[in-house]
């Protein structure tokens, strides 16, 4: 089950545009050049802990849903459970996440509490529309 598979295969012109953009970027940067990105500037997020606004760990980021522009739409968070029993995967709106690569303790914060996401339908089937939890009207 590849969770990052694009779901909109009926829009080839957009894909072409994306491929073209990629080619342009590739042409702009000389091949083989390496840039060192410090760990406090870019964060490896897969498997990373996610905290609620109070700083309490609520789960781990296990996947990212990306749109056709390459922009993240939603994050899949595995939360709850004890020793692996009762864990659920929930998709949350990307903009509800805040990243602090330099903060070793809480690198990812979710603008939703456990109680706000607890009843959300589980994100299970990559071939179906993802049930994404969105932030309430007035964000904190």
């Amino acid at each position: 089950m590849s969770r990052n598979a694009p779901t909109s295969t009926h829009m080839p012109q957009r894909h072409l545009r994306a491929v073209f953009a990629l080619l342009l970027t590739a042409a702009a940067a000389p091949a083989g050049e390496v840039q060192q990105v410090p760990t406090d500037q870019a964060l490896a997020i897969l498997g990373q802990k996610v905290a609620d606004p109070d700083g309490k760990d609520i789960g781990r980021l296990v996947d990212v849903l990306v749109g056709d522009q390459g922009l993240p739409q939603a994050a899949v968070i595995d939360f709850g459970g004890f020793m692996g029993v009762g864990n659920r995967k929930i998709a949350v709106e990307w903009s509800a996440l805040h990243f602090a690569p330099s903060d070793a303790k809480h690198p990812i914060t979710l603008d939703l509490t456990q109680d706000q996401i607890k009843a959300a339908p589980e994100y299970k089937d990559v071939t179906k529309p993802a049930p994404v939890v969105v932030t309430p009207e007035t964000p904190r």
Partner: protein
Amino acid sequence: MPPNGTSQTRSQRALDLLNFFVADVQTGFGPFVAVYLTMHKWTQVQIGFALTLSTIVALISQLPAGALVDAAPNKRRAAGGALIGVIVAALLMAFWPSDLPVLVAQALHAFSSCVLTPAIAAISLHLVGHAALGERLGRNASFAAIGNGLAAAAMGVTGTYVSSQSVFLLTAALCVPALLALLAIGRGPHARQQTTTQLFDWPGLRRLFTNRQLLAFGVCVLLFHMSNAAMLPLLGATVTMRTGTFANLIIAACIMVPQAVVALCSPWVGRSAASRGRRPVLLLGWAALPLRGLLLAVLPGAWLPVAAQAISGVSGAVFGVMLPLISADITRGTSHFNLCMGALGLAVSLGAGISTTLGGWIADTAGVQAAFAVLALVGVLATLALWLVMPETTPDPPRTDWQARQPPPAGSE
């Protein structure tokens, strides 16, 4: 009973400890593996593959592992080898959580478990003989449940507050006292009657696999796990859905409360199976399944289901004691006790596999209440099957007076 009472007492104590520690070392290799691999940046596809591999290895190892233990002249050595396998698997998981090592660890652990379970039952049989086996298996299940519950608590705490790696380090470390306990058990006085030197004894195998009692019990065991296996994971997901903040505490209770019930009930189950016969005890354990399924389907909130989950302790105690006991009944006088346990282990794995698939599918399409209701219905079928096809297997002739008057095995105060 052998005249040498103190060495028997010592061996029984050592077997208690073996059961306690072996249950401990199984805890970390459960659903926690998925959490652990997630932390090590494994993708969901990779994790699914590792877990499937472990399931398949467990499925195909049951019969060969049982035959292997039957063929091993020394069952304690077989159990020791399996424990060393668990140590290697746990260390691989702790220190080298990348593709190949984890797959090797999963396969190694699955195979070792298939050896350990029948080997411990065989060691128990060698130690006390058929007449006192019910009582002994009650003690086994009781100590295993205490080990299981405490290990879940300890690993839950260290996994959360120390590091996820510590769960597997603790697993490897707990194998050491298990090995020491194994060494202290010594050769059982009833060992000779159960040892075979033949790996392939075709007429014996044909007799075993056409044994009506085994076929009947196999079906009952399959249906039992078809009803049982999906209940806890579904309940866990439901609890997480109903209570955000305290979900992990409630799920921990759902795991540990039934173990306490198993620890309390098992000695009684073992004694009752010996004094009242197997059928009434089996019926009690099987009938507890539909009751639990029904309660889980209707009880609201998050804390009430914990009470329903406690009922699973009754089923768990009956199952844990009766599976080896019935295997010993069926294979009495033959040398296929462990193979018989392997065959029933296969029924357990198949039933559990169907259960989680079926339960998950119904929960997705019709809701979790419907899933519990269907699992309860399967439990009704399992109980009916047991009632209709499962014969009493208490060996003929039934316990005579001199057996009934025998003092309980030394050391079981």
